[in-house]
């Protein structure tokens, strides 16, 4: 091998490896995007038809469905894979998002129902969706920074900030679930972009 060939080989290997890890990340964006779209539409339909906001409790089923599915996808990956700092950071970002989103939702529900906390009741009825969707957009943008992917960075910003703006316009009712539907579609679309780019 000449020096140029060696350097070309090193560059190609490093690039292919980075692309492969990014491509694999795309699968999880698609999975969570589809789940978010499905659950938001389900809650929206049930809330709209019955008039009860308690259908929001269905959200707690999303991680129960999502994490086993993500685990199944990971176990079926051929070849099994590699880990690097980026894949570990991405995993950490979304795990943190899941923990924060579930915890804030759970605390709000507990404080509202068990302790009749008026502030929690306001948050539950008015701003919980906006808070979670903002966290979601932030998680997506940071993922884009880690993956050095502008499509994900922009999608995260548009989802987070755009959804809050839409929320202010539409107000606090079952229609706010459609913001999650939009966020889910954007997430799935960014996953597809990542897969196609690589």
């Amino acid at each position, binding site marked *: 091998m000449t020096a140029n060939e060696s350097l070309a080989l*090193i560059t190609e290997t*490093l690039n292919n490896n980075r692309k492969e890890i990014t491509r694999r990340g795309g699968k999880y964006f698609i999975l969570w995007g589809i789940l978010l779209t499905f659950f938001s539409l389900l809650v929206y339909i049930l809330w709209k038809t019955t008039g009860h906001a308690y259908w929001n409790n269905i959200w707690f089923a999303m991680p129960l469905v999502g994490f086993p599915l993500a685990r199944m996808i990971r176990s079926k990956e051929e*070849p*099994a894979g*590699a*880990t690097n700092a980026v894949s570990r950071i991405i995993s950490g970002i979304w795990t943190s998002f899941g923990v924060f989103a579930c915890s804030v939702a759970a605390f709000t529900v507990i404080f509202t129902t068990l302790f009749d906390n008026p502030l929690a009741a306001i948050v539950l009825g008015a701003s919980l969706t906006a808070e979670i969707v903002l966290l979601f957009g932030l998680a997506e943008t940071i993922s884009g920074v880690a993956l050095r992917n502008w499509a994900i960075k922009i999608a995260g910003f548009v989802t987070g900030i755009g959804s809050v703006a839409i929320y202010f316009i539409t107000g606090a009712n079952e229609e706010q679930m459609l913001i999650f539907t939009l966020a889910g579609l954007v997430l799935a679309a960014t996953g597809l972009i990542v897969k196609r780019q690589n």
Partner: protein
Amino acid sequence: MFPKLDPILHSELRLAVVSLLAGVESADFTYIKKQTGATAGNLSVQIDKLSSAGYITVEKGFKGKMPCTTCSLTPEGLEAFRKYVDALKEYISN
């Protein structure tokens, strides 16, 4: 005078393996095989050579019920790789 290129790294497949491992914390055998396009037998031989030189560590374990061989670059391997790349740059710049 040009610096001497490390003979352990100056082989296409071994260089590809070390380059790949330089970008990750660890990678399993099947992943390395796919990314390098090598045959299992050849890859196994080259991984043994890199391991004997102390450039990589090889851990054999199980993922579920399937056997799994995981490789990672050692600090010595990373240093050797860095020196190799520096030497290549010197070759090219002169």
